[in-house]
């Protein structure tokens, strides 16, 4: 960063004075053979607009890598460009993404399988690093198909260990979510792991202290659409979860619990039997039936709902046994189906969706704003004025009605709006994590209480193992060791974060393996790795490969 900064300024100066090229500076050639020089690293950083935090982390990491002798160029990119060129077509060398810690990610299926299995390494796949380790593939395949929890936990621990050594895509830090709410008027919030006050459970537990029973809830941006089969936006899904009931809900500790189902049981490794709760009604007072449940899953499969496609693609068939009983038949054993399939798919009213589908097919279903959304969930849709507010009220006929009367969600567009809204009492709670500076500002607002929740998601670096020098494990390890995770926590997050070492977060106690190698924050170790592998440096401190170097892909 530093050199490119100065260089660009130099170029500017030259332009300005309309001088000739003389100032552009010639590069000094080191005494070592040029062809053995470790190639330049192009580090893509998101622009500050998108996320100032990520930008700063990028600068700090790049600085340390330069200290190691790497030639690092930082390129600031717009998120859309980066996501398309990096996440989709894998043209990157190294870049950073923030992975959110949603409830359905508590089961580490995504972290361990989707993001590291070779099947996902192709274009558009989520194995962004291009990590192609057959031994690891075998391990995680087992993890996915095994239903036994203890066995799965063991497999997850092994997988974490391998990843910690190979570091194809090292996690950097977990944020600590800092959400504020009005404790004078409301009590008993739930700060859920990875979600804070945005969690469904918060809305169930939040209790009014006095007469004000509707919670005004601030957020930075507005929801986009309320069609559960079309949306892909996190904020939309938080709201849809409140309107629609899934059969199973993941509790605040990450364990799936029956919800619209009275119970569920595994008949065999590919069949799950679900008993539907009695007496449930949709917001339009029509009863919830097994037909509705079956139709929901069938429709999602039929129209290829993008968000659910991968979650239910192992689902072969839904059978209706009787009025209250359904059987889910999978094409092969698939452990995450309960939490990811049953746990996310809200029951849709057949009487609303079927006519629409019959009339216009998949397009009519997908290109539909679905307003008002009618579900059976504890909250009922009242109105939505885009960019202004969204109101939900509690559904008293629900089997577990919320204690509050409802909620109004207000998008503020800018974080300072949220903060000032909290301060002025315009809103009672905010699902926007507050920076220390902002917490400082809210000190005087006595009605507010600030609570925290650890994020099981993280900021994660993605090396591209398809490209040199990231194909080499020594280089990856050295680079990762050099990342100043603690410094990042202190400087960028002002302490409101914790360093991340494992692909499965420490806070995710059931799945986390505490015995892995903690790679990071150790410049000495980073140098040691490189020296041991025979890397050399020239007079300017630039790093060179050992002679006749054989690339080593994995640790063992």
């Amino acid at each position, binding site marked *: 960063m530093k050199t490119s*900064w100065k260089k660009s300024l130099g170029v500017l100066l030259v332009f300005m004075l309309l001088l000739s090229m003389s100032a552009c500076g010639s590069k000094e050639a080191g005494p070592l053979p040029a062809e053995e020089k470790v190639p330049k690293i192009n580090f893509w950083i998101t622009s500050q607009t998108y996320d100032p935090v990520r930008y700063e982390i990028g600068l700090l990491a790049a600085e340390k890598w330069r200290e190691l002798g790497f030639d690092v160029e930082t390129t600031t990119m717009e998120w859309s460009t980066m996501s398309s060129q990096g996440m989709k077509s894998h043209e990157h060398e190294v870049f950073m993404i923030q992975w959110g810690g949603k409830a359905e990610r508590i089961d580490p299926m995504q972290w361990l399988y989707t993001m590291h299995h070779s099947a996902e390494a192709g274009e558009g796949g989520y194995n962004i690093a291009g990590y192609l380790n057959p031994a690891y593939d075998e391990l995680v395949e087992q993890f996915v198909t095994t239903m036994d929890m203890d066995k799965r936990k063991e497999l997850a621990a092994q997988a974490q260990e391998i990843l910690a050594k190979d570091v194809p895509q090292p996690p950097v830090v977990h944020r600590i979510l800092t959400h504020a709410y009005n404790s004078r008027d409301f009590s008993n919030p739930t700060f859920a792991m990875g979600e804070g006050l945005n969690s469904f459970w918060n809305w169930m537990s939040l209790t009014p202290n006095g007469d004000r029973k509707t919670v005004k809830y601030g957020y930075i941006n507005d929801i986009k659409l309320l069609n559960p089969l079309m949306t892909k936006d996190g904020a939309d899904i938080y709201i849809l979860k409140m309107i629609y009931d899934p059969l199973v809900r993941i509790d605040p500790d990450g364990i799936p619990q029956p919800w619209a189902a009275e119970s569920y049981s595994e008949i065999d490794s590919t069949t799950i039997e679900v008993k539907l709760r009695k007496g449930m009604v949709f917001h339009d007072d029509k009863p919830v039936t097994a037909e509705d449940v079956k139709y929901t899953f069938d429709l999602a499969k039929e129209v290829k709902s993008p968000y659910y496609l991968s979650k239910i693609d192992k689902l072969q068939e839904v059978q209706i046994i009787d009025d209250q009983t359904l059987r889910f038949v999978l094409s092969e054993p698939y452990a995450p189906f309960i939490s990811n399939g049953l746990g996310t798919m809200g029951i849709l009213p057949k009487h609303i969706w079927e006519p629409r589908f019959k009339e216009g097919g998949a397009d009519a279903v997908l290109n539909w704003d679905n307003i008002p959304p009618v579900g059976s969930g504890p909250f009922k849709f009242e109105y939505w004025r885009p960019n202004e507010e969204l109101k939900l009220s509690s559904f008293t006929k629900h089997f577990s009605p919320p204690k509050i009367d409802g909620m109004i969600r207000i998008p503020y567009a800018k974080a300072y709006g949220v903060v000032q809204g909290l301060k002025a009492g315009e809103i009672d709670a905010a699902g926007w994590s507050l920076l220390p500076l902002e917490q400082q500002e809210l000190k005087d607002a006595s009605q507010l209480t600030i609570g925290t929740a650890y994020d099981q998601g993280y900021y994660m670096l993605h090396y591209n193992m398809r490209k040199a020098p990231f194909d080499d494990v020594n280089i990856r390890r050295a680079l990762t060791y050099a990342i100043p995770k603690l410094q990042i926590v202190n400087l960028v997050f002002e302490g409101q974060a914790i360093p991340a070492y494992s692909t499965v977060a420490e806070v995710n106690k059931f799945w986390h393996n505490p015995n892995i190698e903690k790679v990071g924050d150790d410049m000495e170790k980073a140098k040691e790795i490189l020296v041991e592998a025979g890397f050399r440096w020239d007079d300017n401190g630039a790093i060179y490969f050992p002679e006749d170097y054989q690339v080593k892909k994995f640790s063992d």
Partner: protein
Amino acid sequence: MKFSTKLFGFIKKDTAGAIGICIFIFFVIVALFAPLISPYDPGAMHFDETGALMRIHPPSFQHLFGTTWMGRDVFSQVVMGTRIALFVGILSAVCVVFIGTNIGLIAGYYGGRIDNIIMRIVDIIYGIPFLPFALILVAVMGPGISNIIIAIILITWRNTARVIRAQVLTIKQRAYVEAARISGASNFRIMYKHIAPNVIPLSLVYIALSMGTGIMTEASLSFLGYGAPEVPSWGKILFECYNSQAMFIAWWWMIPPGIAITLLVLSGFLVGRSYEEVANPRLRER
């Protein structure tokens, strides 16, 4: 009369113009000696004696304009930003006016169908809302100084072209142009030897004014988050300030870059305006 007297003669006559020139020269000096003037690397973070990051510190002797939320020196950023501002401003202005002047000359001199086509294009471009277009263009081509300048050029040549064309239309009527034709001068010669020197004062006015447009556009795009990422421009300082929620607390972070933009744009405006009074005889009579 010497050319230089003609060019700068207005300074004596017009205090506002003189003030404008002074401001401009001040910024040029700051830009030239920016590395000497700025006490720190604008990207460097600063720590206090206890080793804590100097987050949002108010102005002090070490940090004349205080620090940012990442402990960077605002003064150094503003000083270094001068270069970007001048670079964007001058380069875009020169390009815009060069293109606009030539198109205006061609349209005005040849008239007829050529003029008609060019003026229709100008009309269409006048229908394009400038900032949204620049925003989309920069978003599409990727943020970067050059793309910002391209966006500015693509749109703003219309102003210069229109004004120059109008001027050419009147100059074309002047008898000395006809006299040159009768002397056997070619179109090219008439355009560039007889007409152009008479519109160049107006072009210079537009260079001064366009400089402001360029700087302002760069700042606006930076503020909307589409600034060139690696350059410490004034607009970006303001953007960071706005984006990091510090604008209500850290006035020292918000005020200086804004003043710098204002002054530099103002200088262009003042110079342009007072030069216009000299260049435009109709105004001079007053």
